[in-house]
């Protein structure tokens, strides 16, 4: 299995609180991604990174920010969590644009009450 870990794996929080999810990789892959998965919507791209300090928005980036200060870590922050952000969040890593293969973490289940 690819060396990718997400933390926390489960979190329950209240509306209006800040939340940070962490993705850590040991593969030295250039690309890192954050997706959310909801019933009926499949996987939707929130943000992705193509290098240290290089990030770009995905299709559902509103309400989320990311940071990548090191190759191995990609942080997803919800500045003020809302109930609509209750979801399962997946981090993925990829070697680059020359391949279609991403490796996914186990997911982080976030519940916003």
């Amino acid at each position, binding site marked *: 299995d690819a060396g990718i870990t997400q933390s926390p794996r489960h979190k329950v929080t209240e509306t209006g609180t800040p939340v940070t999810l962490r993705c850590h990789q040991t593969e030295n892959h250039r*690309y890192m*991604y954050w*997706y959310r998965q909801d019933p*009926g*919507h*499949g*996987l*939707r*791209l929130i943000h*992705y990174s*193509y290098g240290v300090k290089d990030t*770009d928005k*995905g*299709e559902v980036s509103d309400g989320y920010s990311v940071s990548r200060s090191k190759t191995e870590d990609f942080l997803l922050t919800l500045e003020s969590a809302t109930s609509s952000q209750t979801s399962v969040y*997946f981090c*993925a890593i*990829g070697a*680059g*644009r020359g*391949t*279609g*293969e*991403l*490796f*996914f*973490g*186990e*997911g982080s289940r976030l519940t916003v009450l």
Partner: protein
Amino acid sequence: GESVGLHLPTLSVQEGDNSIINCAYSNSASDYFIWYKQESGKGPQFIIDIRSNMDKRQGQRVTVLLNKTVKHLSLQIAATQPGDSAVYFCAETSTRGDMRFGAGTRLTVKP
């Protein structure tokens, strides 16, 4: 807008039969098209990909077909087994490096 989608949300097949899962896309500029398998409680796993300049690619028991004329992608699974039961996603990746997924098809294999 640009999208990746699936024709059917569910597919049920008999063990040993062949399965075909379909996907439509609208972004002609994509580099790669990919199929992922997701089992319950796990993250998606890569199955096979195909580059935009190819029509067909085969793996172990799986074949991906790309028809650029009608913007259609399909995944064929030969001799479907109970372990193939899962949700299957097609995805596309653009020249920017982002990867976007369709809504998924749930494959159920009946013994």
